């Protein structure tokens, strides 16, 4: 079998699976690489092989994903799971690790859909054992049926309420919900109410979740601010302010969440053009309506292209596949336009709905751009806000200069947990827009490689076949 494909897709979430299905239906040769053991992405994680007796407690938005995963498994697609992509070359070669070996594919057209990650939550003590993200609670539940009783859930956004409701339905106790959605959220969001009303079902679902939590008797602290984790060597509780009073709630486990942002490292390392999306307060690849990036043979879709959610990701995946077929000369311009129109219309209404959500659940500056000088900005190299400030005062005015001076962003996570904080801090300190500040310059490999794999990487010549590479 050849290692050259018409279309290679990275990530088997709703975006990547939909792109693959469309491309396969249109007759392309398609390969999909995904780092997890099973397809589904974040939202549909392990939906066809849930460890839970009754996965329906996770909600219909979850179980409905089974249909997509099954269609993906049955289609004529070259599927590679446990395949962690860490380098994409300019001419379309894709290098990935599987079973501790480097393997290689070549793509004529690439569709990148590595999804989102949770926004960093840099508050005092967020690095302590016992502090995790709310998304992690969901990952552990979906993949391993593993739960933690008596935790605090803190932050804002629909995913936070969703996991709390899922916990409660399963009889898992929750100590408290500390909600940082600011009081002005409703007012800010009202200007986008038109968009929200186009998706009333989603709006109602969100309200129902909160109601469910309330009815279960879990204490909800609304409009909380100034969060900090208590504890020296591990978390023992959460302190916060509400109505001008300081509260603290004890818990050995705290799950934080303040929305999701695109998983940037792959698109950044590729040198794709990005911009600062003010509405979502994150860096986002600059793309056209079909997900086409600034590099001719590369499209980016799904939440990696800007947060739009799982339903929109399906349409975006199909659009990118149609466009790729057109670029490959396998779909006429007229057919492209005709087959795209429903998906384009759907994307538009999801965008309008997202404006409402983004305004309502906007993460507050104090939890994105912390002021306390001993709060860690960079968890890996343990650089505090104070140390970054000192680096800035020594002349490091942009993220790369600050990285060179302080080592922030140089650790194993390659800036994933501090990149946004650093861009925003430098913008505030210079009173400039974030778009003028930029982001870290990133390179391959996009993960830690063993010495063996790294030496293979250095020996790889673009023309080699996978068999020779892994020898």
């Amino acid at each position: 079998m050849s290692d050259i494909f018409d279309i290679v897709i990275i990530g088997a979430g709703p975006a990547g699976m939909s792109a693959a299905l469309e491309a396969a239906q249109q007759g392309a040769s398609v390969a999909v690489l995904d780092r997890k053991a099973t397809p589904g992405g974040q939202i549909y994680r392990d939906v066809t092989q849930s460890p839970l007796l009754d996965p329906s407690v996770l909600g219909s938005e979850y179980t409905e994903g089974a249909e997509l995963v099954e269609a993906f498994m049955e289609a004529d697609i070259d599927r590679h799971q446990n395949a962690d992509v860490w380098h994409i070359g300019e001419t379309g070669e894709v290098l990935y690790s599987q079973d501790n070996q480097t393997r290689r594919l070549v793509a004529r057209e690439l569709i990148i859909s590595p999804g989102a990650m949770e926004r960093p939550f840099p508050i005092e003590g967020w690095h302590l054992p016992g502090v995790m993200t709310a998304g992690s609670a969901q990952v552990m539940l979906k993949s391993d049926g593993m739960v933690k009783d008596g935790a605090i859930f803190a932050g804002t956004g629909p995913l936070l309420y969703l996991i709390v409701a899922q916990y409660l339905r399963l009889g898992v106790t929750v100590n408290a919900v500390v909600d940082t959605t600011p009081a002005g959220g409703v007012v800010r969001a009202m200007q986008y109410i038109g968009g929200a009303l186009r998706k009333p079902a989603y709006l109602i679902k969100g309200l129902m979740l909160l109601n469910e939590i309330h009815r279960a008797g879990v204490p909800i602290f609304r409009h909380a601010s100034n969060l900090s984790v208590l504890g020296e060597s591990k978390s023992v509780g959460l302190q916060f302010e509400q109505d001008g009073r300081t509260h603290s709630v004890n818990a050995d486990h705290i799950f934080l969440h303040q929305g999701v942002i695109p998983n940037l490292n792959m698109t950044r390392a590729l040198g794709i053009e990005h911009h600062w999306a003010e509405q979502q307060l994150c860096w986002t690849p600059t793309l056209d309506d079909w997900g086409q990036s600034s590099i001719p043979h590369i499209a980016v879709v799904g939440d990696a292209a800007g947060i739009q959610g799982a339903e929109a990701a399906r349409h975006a995946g199909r659009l990118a596949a149609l466009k790729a077929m057109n670029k490959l000369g396998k779909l006429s311009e007229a057919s492209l336009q005709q087959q795209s129109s429903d998906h384009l219309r759907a994307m538009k209404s999801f965008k309008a709905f997202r404006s409402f959500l983004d305004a309502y659940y906007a993460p507050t500056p104090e939890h994105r751009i912390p002021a306390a000088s001993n709060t860690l900005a960079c968890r890996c190299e343990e650089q505090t806000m104070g140390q970054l400030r000192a680096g800035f005062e020594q002349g490091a005015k942009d993220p790369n200069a600050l990285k060179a001076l302080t080592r922030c962003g140089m650790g194993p996570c390659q800036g994933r947990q501090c990149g946004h904080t650093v861009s925003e801090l430098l913008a505030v300190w210079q009173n400039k827009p974030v778009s003028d500040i930029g982001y870290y310059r990133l390179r391959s490999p996009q993960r830690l490689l063993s010495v063996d794999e790294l030496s293979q990487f250095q020996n790889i010549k673009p023309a080699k076949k996978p068999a020779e590479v892994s020898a």
Partner: protein
Amino acid sequence: MFRSLRKPETQSVSININGQMVQVAEGSSLWAAMALHGETQTRLALVSGQQRSAYCAMGVCFECLVEVNGVPNQQACLTTVEEGMHVCSQDLTEQSIAALHQKESADHE
């Protein structure tokens, strides 16, 4: 403690966590296997040497680095358990890595 709601009929495999043989569900993530046995320490902070534990469980924070079958820096949250696997919390810090390099170059001379 974390607890498991996994359905009962799941097959299990044996792995060694920090010197102790334990039974864990087949297909578990290594992080879940560790956490369910109370072994929540993964790596040490590189500079201060403080204990760390998993944060994201989805591959983007690198707090869950552990030693698997003698190979350090493996992400426990992205690793699936396998029969006979040996896993250790790892104690690499900038200091210990520097000491290791020093010893290696001394051995070469």
